[in-house]
């Protein structure tokens, strides 16, 4: 009570007031719509070939929980530092934030988390079964083989990996130049896989004969030998061209380079670009020769842009028809070559997205160059009776081919993936691990069903976290669209720009072009993420509920249906579509 003032009468105060609880009024009885917490699939995770839980990774990173964020990547992918650099990040192409301002720099974030963990030398606390007594052999220590070994080990298999080369890594080791992937980063991530108990046997090529011995010692086999054999250029003088992949492998030893002047690089894929950009760094002026148009190149567009920025010329609609020693200057050393090109033209509209080209009459162009390199594709060995024919029980999966021979055999990596990329190779290794585990636990017929049950979104991507059960398994496969984001809660904010070397700084060295984000920038970038479809405990549902019917129990939110009258405000105010409103079923 206020102190009484003597000079006047007390002020009467008569207002409606009741101590009767309104709890008796169970407003839940009015409800005909029911809100539920239903987490959904973020488009980035569905687009990621490895099915990383990006929305959750960004949420953890935004809170500075970098170790937990990194472990969330490792649930699905043992190579964050590698993929943060070399993956062509289809996740960013799918990012809903692009419709507000710009996509989240997911690859930068992944690289930051990967590098931070490498620097700290930590091992990930990812769920792991104890050894089950089964042994699996893996042929090829490239990204597919190493991923398969990593996931099989987590599922309780004992794994040995056989590698023909003196060091593991496959294409990551021998095919990607250091300015895109420093050797120490790759070695660090492979070391971590070895530390989980995977045994890698280098300089141990697998032949048809040794394969039989390996089969005898193991319960299952995963073959990911990759595309080791380059396709040769089948034109007159084609033997004078150097194979681009071999060049990339050799360039790592400093003594082996002797050409100068101009070199032609034939091809339009990522390897062709890597070869050209590597030549540039060795003081050679490369010319990329491609038979279709620039927009038809199978190389990832950002790599093409980077190459152009560095000054590499692209000669499109040009098909090589002959290589000869320069007749005018037969005595020169290094040798001069005459590369004859048939000019091409587009004949009709696209086939499979690429233009069909035909010779443009007799138009010929001759290049005088000091070297010719080819990067026109490679092919694999038919190790282990590949591809499996009708004579054996077999199954074609999205990223693998599986057959039941005297033991289960799965072919993966470049041999079987729809897109030849590092992340697809990793996806292939994971798919193989899940397939083998299911095969032993539940039999052949369960494999396809199991794989389908742990898909992320509607695509072929599978999730190990979902396979092992947990929150992710319970998420709806429905992919959240931008329309379903409550954009009122998000304001345009610029995407992080990594520090990059100037073109002048890049060319004399093989130093990495983009720098890893610093901690503050990475965390800041992570806060831009909408966290599509997953609850980040923002508590809007609880704050906006007019009936105070949202309760927090053990950090999870629960709706008290005695009082929820189904107004749907919580669902509308959820910024990230982690809830749904459904009609009550009577």
């Amino acid at each position, binding site marked *: 009570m206020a102190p009484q003032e003597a000079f006047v009468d007390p002020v009467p105060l008569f207002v*409606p007031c009741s101590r009767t609880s309104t709890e008796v009024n169970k407003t839940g009885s009015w409800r005909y719509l029911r809100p539920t917490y239903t987490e959904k699939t973020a488009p980035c995770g569905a687009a990621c070939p490895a099915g990383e839980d990006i929305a959750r990774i960004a949420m953890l990173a935004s809170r500075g929980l970098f170790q937990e964020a990194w472990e969330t990547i490792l649930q699905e992918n043992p190579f964050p530092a590698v993929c943060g650099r070399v993956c062509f990040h289809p996740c960013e192409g799918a990012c809903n934030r692009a419709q507000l301002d710009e996509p989240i720099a997911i690859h930068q974030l992944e690289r930051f988390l990967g590098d931070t963990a490498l620097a700290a030398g930590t091992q990930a606390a990812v769920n792991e079964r104890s050894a089950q007594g089964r042994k699996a052999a893996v042929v090829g220590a490239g990204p597919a083989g190493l991923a398969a070994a990593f996931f099989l080990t987590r599922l309780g298999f004992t794994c040995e990996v056989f590698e023909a080369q003196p060091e593991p890594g496959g294409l990551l080791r021998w095919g990607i130049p250091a300015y895109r992937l420093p050797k120490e980063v790759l070695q660090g991530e492979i070391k971590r896989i070895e530390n989980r108990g995977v045994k890698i046997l280098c300089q141990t090529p697998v032949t048809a004969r040794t394969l039989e011995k390996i089969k005898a010692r193991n319960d299952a086999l995963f073959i990911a030998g990759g595309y080791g054999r380059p396709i040769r250029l089948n034109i007159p003088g084609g033997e004078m061209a150097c194979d681009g992949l071999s060049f990339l492998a050799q360039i790592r030893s400093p003594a082996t380079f002797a050409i100068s002047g101009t070199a032609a690089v034939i091809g339009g894929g990522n390897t062709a670009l890597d070869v050209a950009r590597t030549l540039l760094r060795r003081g050679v002026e490369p010319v990329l020769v491609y038979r279709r148009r620039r927009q038809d190149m199978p190389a990832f567009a950002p790599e093409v842009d980077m190459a152009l920025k560095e000054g590499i010329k692209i000669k499109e609609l040009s098909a090589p028809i002959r290589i000869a020693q320069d007749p005018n200057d037969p005595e020169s050393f290094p040798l001069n070559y005459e590369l004859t090109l048939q000019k091409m033209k587009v004949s009709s509209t696209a086939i499979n997205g690429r233009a069909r080209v035909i010779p443009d009459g007799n138009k010929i162009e001759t290049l005088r160059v000091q070297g010719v390199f080819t990067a026109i594709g490679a092919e694999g060995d038919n190790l282990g009776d590949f591809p499996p024919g009708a004579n054996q029980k077999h199954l074609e999966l999205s990223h693998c081919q599986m057959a039941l021979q005297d033991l289960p055999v799965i072919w993966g990596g470049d041999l079987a993936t729809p897109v030849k990329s590092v992340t697809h190779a990793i996806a292939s290794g994971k798919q193989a691990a899940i397939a083998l585990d299911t095969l032993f636990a539940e039999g052949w017929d369960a494999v396809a069903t199991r794989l389908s049950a742990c898909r992320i979104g509607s695509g072929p991507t599978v999730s190990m976290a979902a396979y092992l059960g947990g929150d992710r398994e319970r998420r709806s496969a429905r992919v959240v669209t931008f329309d379903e984001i409550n954009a009122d809660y998000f304001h345009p904010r610029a995407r992080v720009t990594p520090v990059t070397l100037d073109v002048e700084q890049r060319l004399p060295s093989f130093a990495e072009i983009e720098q890893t984000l610093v901690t503050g920038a990475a965390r800041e970038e992570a806060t831009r993420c909408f966290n599509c479809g997953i609850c980040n405990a923002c508590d809007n549902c609880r704050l906006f509920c007019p009936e105070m019917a949202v309760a927090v129990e053990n950090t999870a939110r629960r709706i008290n249906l005695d009082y929820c009258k189904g107004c749907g405000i919580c669902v509308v105010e959820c910024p990230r579509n982690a809830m749904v409103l459904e009609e009550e079923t009577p």
Partner: protein
Amino acid sequence: MKQVLEGSHAVSEAVRLARVQVISAYPITPQTHIVEAISAFCADGTMDARFLCVESEHSAMAAVIAAASTGVRAFTATSSHGLAYMHELLHWAAAARLPIVMAEVNRALGPGWNIWMDQTDSLSQRDTGWIQLYCEDGQDVLDTTLMAFRLAEAVHLPVMVVLDAFYLSHTFEPVDVPRQNQVDRFLPPLVPRISLDTAHPRVLNQMAPPGVYMEMRYNIQTAMAQVPRRLTQYQKEFRAIFDRPPGDAVEAVQCEDAEVVLVTSGTISSTCRQVISDLRSRGEKIGMLKIKMFRPFPIALVRRFLGAARKVAVVDRNFSFGASGVFAQELRAALCNLDGHPPVFGYIAGLGGRDVTPDTLVEIYRRTQDCPTPPEESIWIGLNQEVVQSWYN
């Protein structure tokens, strides 16, 4: 200490000194400077208060109602359309008996779109149960704001501190800003009689059936009726602490022998003081009754000061369409049952920011002097006849 302050900032300073705990407001010209300064006080720690940004005046009033219901000192400010938008919640705040203080800067309502001085916005809220105090100058603004909290918390009714757009809100004047310890003595911490408490849950302002509703309304009027007496008492305390008199509910200037008494409010009163001084020096018998407190309407004081006047001329800077100026209506109602009350002339002047100059007031004085009885209709002063006539052509 004397400072040169904008009228708006005189409000802000008073709110700071009053140790207000919750402020919620939505910007609107000419009010915005008030809450701009307060939000800066909240941001830099000068005030230990929460400033709630909202998307509308309706929500601003809802927010301060909620805050005041938990027993904290709450403040908002608005103007014109913002005030109109708050309308239903003004009724609520009063009937919920919440001691909210609001600064209301008088501004015309559109259309035509007009940001200038006009009292129609605040006067059209006269039936909401809010106490209304009109200010004359910068010092009056600061003093009235402090007084508003004291009054509101004593009678459990909200108070509107009303100040003229631009003439007060945007004009710099010397203002004596008191020390915090002085203000703390005048305005001790709020001891709430209504305070929601999660430890002792209860429901406020639920259904009130016909059997009690009327008593609740009578209850509000009982509290309202105490205001004049309490104001007088708090003025004494104010004067003792701050060593200057705060504005009276009604101020009579040379009314005793006046042939014509001009009734004014707001900044027109200052202009009128000059006119009185000029005309009195020439032997003219003019007086002024300044009405500061419009709600509750000071009937007793009006009767005391005007009962014996010969002629009364009300200067209304507002208009109630189909009737007259609002002050004139109220004045007539206050006087009509008094035997031999003076004739009341109603003048409309200075709408939508048009200047009311000494000449305007002299014209009102002369017309009242020359006219034996008031016409039925209000007299609109300073209309541009050329414009008015052009509508008929």
